[in-house]
C-alpha cells in the first residue's frame, strides 16, 4: 500500500512538470496553430536562467523563479516576432522544421554558455526536507509541485474563460480573419500568447531546478517528447486534455518505472498509440 501511494505521488509530481510544459505547448498550438518543438528548449533555458540567478547573483530561490523565466520570454519574443510570424501560412513541415532549427540553436547555445557538463544547483532550505507519508519519507518540494500544477491550471482556466482578454484570445484562435476585421490586433495578440506560453514552459524549467537536482543540456529533449505525447493524448489544443493527459502519463510512467522497468520508455508511446487508434483526435480534441 505504502509503495503504491508513493508511486502515485511521484507520478503526480513528475506529471505536473509535464503539464507545465504541455500547457504552454497546447496554448500556443490552440491559438496560433503551431506545434513548437523548441518549447522543450524554453523549459531548459528557464532552468538554466533560474540556476544562474540563484548561483551567480546570489539571490534566493524565488528571485530565480521570477527572473529566470522572464529572461526566457525575451527569447520567445524574438522567435515569434521575427521568425515564426512569417511562416504561419506555409505548409506544416516548414513550421515544424523552423522550431526544430531553434532547438538545435538553443541546445548548442546552452552548451556554449554554460558548458556541456551537468550542473548541480545549491540545495533548497525553505522547501527542502521531507515529510513522512505512510511511514516513508516524501520530499516536501514534490508536494509543493503537486499543488502548483492545479494552481496553474486554475489560473489558465480563469484567464481564458473569465477575462475579457481571454475571450479575445479564444475568438482569434477560432477565426483569425474575423477577429482582425473586428479590430483585434491579431499579430500582437499572437506574440503575446506565444510569449506567455514560453513563460509557462520556462516556469516549469525554473521549478524543476530543485526537483531534478542536475541540469543537463539534454533536459529539454526528453521533456518535450513527453509533453507532445500528453498534448496529443489530451487532444491538441485542449488545455483540459493536456492536464488530464499529464496526470495519466505521469502516474503510469511512475508505475512503469517502478514495476516494469524494461518497458519504461515504450509505455508512454504505446499509450499514445492506443488512444489515437481509439479516438484519432485525442481525448478532448475537436473532430475535424
Amino acid at each position, binding site marked *: 500500500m505504502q509503495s503504491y501511494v508513493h508511486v502515485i505521488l511521484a507520478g503526480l509530481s513528475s506529471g505536473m512538470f509535464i503539464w507545465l510544459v504541455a500547457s504552454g505547448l497546447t496554448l500556443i498550438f490552440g491559438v496560433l496553430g503551431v506545434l513548437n518543438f523548441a518549447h522543450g528548449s524554453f523549459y531548459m533555458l528557464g532552468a538554466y536562467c533560474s540556476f544562474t540567478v540563484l548561483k551567480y547573483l546570489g539571490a534566493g530561490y524565488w528571485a530565480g523563479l521570477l527572473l529566470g523565466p522572464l529572461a526566457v520570454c525575451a527569447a520567445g519574443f524574438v522567435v515569434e516576432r521575427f521568425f515564426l510570424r512569417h511562416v504561419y501560412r506555409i505548409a506544416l513541415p516548414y513550421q515544424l522544421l523552423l522550431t526544430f532549427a531553434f532547438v538545435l540553436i538553443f541546445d548548442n547555445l546552452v552548451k556554449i554558455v554554460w558548458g556541456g557538463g551537468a550542473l548541480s544547483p545549491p540545495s533548497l532550505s525553505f522547501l527542502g526536507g521531507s515529510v513522512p507519508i505512510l511511514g516513508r519519507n516524501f520530499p516536501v518540494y514534490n508536494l509543493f509541485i503537486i499543488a502548483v500544477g492545479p494552481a496553474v491550471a486554475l489560473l489558465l482556466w480563469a484567464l481564458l474563460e473569465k477575462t475579457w482578454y481571454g475571450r479575445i484570445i479564444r475568438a482569434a484562435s477560432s477565426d483569425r480573419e474575423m477577429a482582425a476585421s473586428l479590430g483585434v490586433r491579431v499579430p500582437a495578440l499572437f506574440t503575446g500568447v506565444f510569449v506567455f506560453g514560453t513563460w509557462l514552459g520556462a516556469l516549469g524549467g525554473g521549478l524543476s531546478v530543485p526537483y531534478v537536482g542536475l541540469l543537463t543540456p539534454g533536459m529539454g529533449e526528453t521533456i518535450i*517528447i513527453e509533453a507532445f505525447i500528453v498534448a496529443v493524448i489530451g487532444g491538441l489544443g485542449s488545455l483540459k486534455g493536456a492536464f488530464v493527459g499529464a496526470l495519466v502519463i505521469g502516474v503510469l510512467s511512475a508505475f512503469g518505472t517502478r514495476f516494469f522497468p524494461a518497458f519504461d*520508455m515504450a509505455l508512454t508511446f504505446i499509450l499514445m498509440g492506443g488512444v489515437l487508434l481509439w479516438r484519432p483526435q485525442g481525448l478532448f480534441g475537436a473532430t475535424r
Partner: protein
Amino acid sequence: MKAQTRNAVAAAVVLLALCAVPFLSGKFAIYLTMRIMLLGIFAVGYNLLLGQTGLLSFGHGAFYAAGAYGLGLFGVHVSTHPLLGVAAGVAAAVLLALLVGTLCVRHTEIYFAMLTLACGMMAFSFFWNAREITGGDDGLIGIVRAPVSLFGGIRMPIGKDEQFYFFVLFFFALSVWVAHRIRHSPFGLALAGIRENARRSEFAGVPVRRYRLAVFVLSGAFAGLAGSLEALLESNARPFMAHWTHSAEPILVSLLGGLSSLAGPLVGSAIFVAMREIIQRFTENWMLGFGVVLLVIIMGFRGGVVGTLSALFRKATAPGEG
C-alpha cells in the same frame, strides 16, 4: 528534351566521378563518400514520401534500424552472404513499415507526424531493451563483410573499404534510378496530386489512403537498404538508428537540398556530411551552425540549394525580359 539530356549527362558525370573516387583519394575520402551515399539513399527514398506526397514522418529511423538489425541478425544466425543479408534487412524494414504505415496513414498532418514519432521511439526502445537479441545499447556486433558470391563461381571480396565502396555505389545508383523512375511515372503523378490536393485526388478516383501506404512502405524500403549497408560498413547496428534525432536527418537534408527535385536530397546529404566532418574538427557545436543554416533556408530559400540555384539559373538564361 533539352532538360532531359542535360540531366542524363549530369548524372553520367556524377557516376563517373563517384567511380573514380577510390582511385584518386585516400581512405578517409572513400569512407566519407560512402557515408554520403548511405544518407543519400535514405533521403532520396524519404523524399518520395515528403517532397512528392507531402507526408511528414518522424519515425523513419525505425526502418533504417530494422534494415541494420535485419542484416546483422541474419548474418549472425543464418548466412553472411551480403546480398542475402541486404535482402533480409530490406524485408525486415518493409514488414515494419507495413505495420507502422497501416496504423498511421489514416491520420493526417500533425497526428501522422506524432504517431510516426511514437512508433519510431517504440522501435528505439525495443532495440535498446531487448539485450539478448539486439545487444542493447552496445549495439549488435559480429557483423562481417563476407565476399559476395554469385552464380558462375564469382567471388567478390568486399572486406576492404575500397572494395566495399563499389558495393555501396551499386545500390546507390540503383536507388537513385528507381526513385527517378517513380517520380516520372503515373504513380508519381498520383502522389503529387495527393500532395497538392488529397480531397480532389479522391474525387479523381485515386485511392488516396492506399497510395499513401504504398509510398510509406516504399520509402521504408529505401531506409532499410541504407541501414543494412551501414551495418556492413560499420560492422554494427545501434539502437540510436531508430531515435527521432536520426529520423530527422533525411528531413533536414532534403530540405537543405530542396524538396521538389531528385537531386535535392542528394546534394543536401553531401553538404550535411561534409559540413559535419569539417566543422566537427573545430567545434563540438556544429549543430548550431546547421540550425542557423536551416533557419536561413526556411525563412528565405525554401527551394533549398538546388531550388534556389535553378531559379537563379533560369533567371540568368531567360530571354532578356524584365
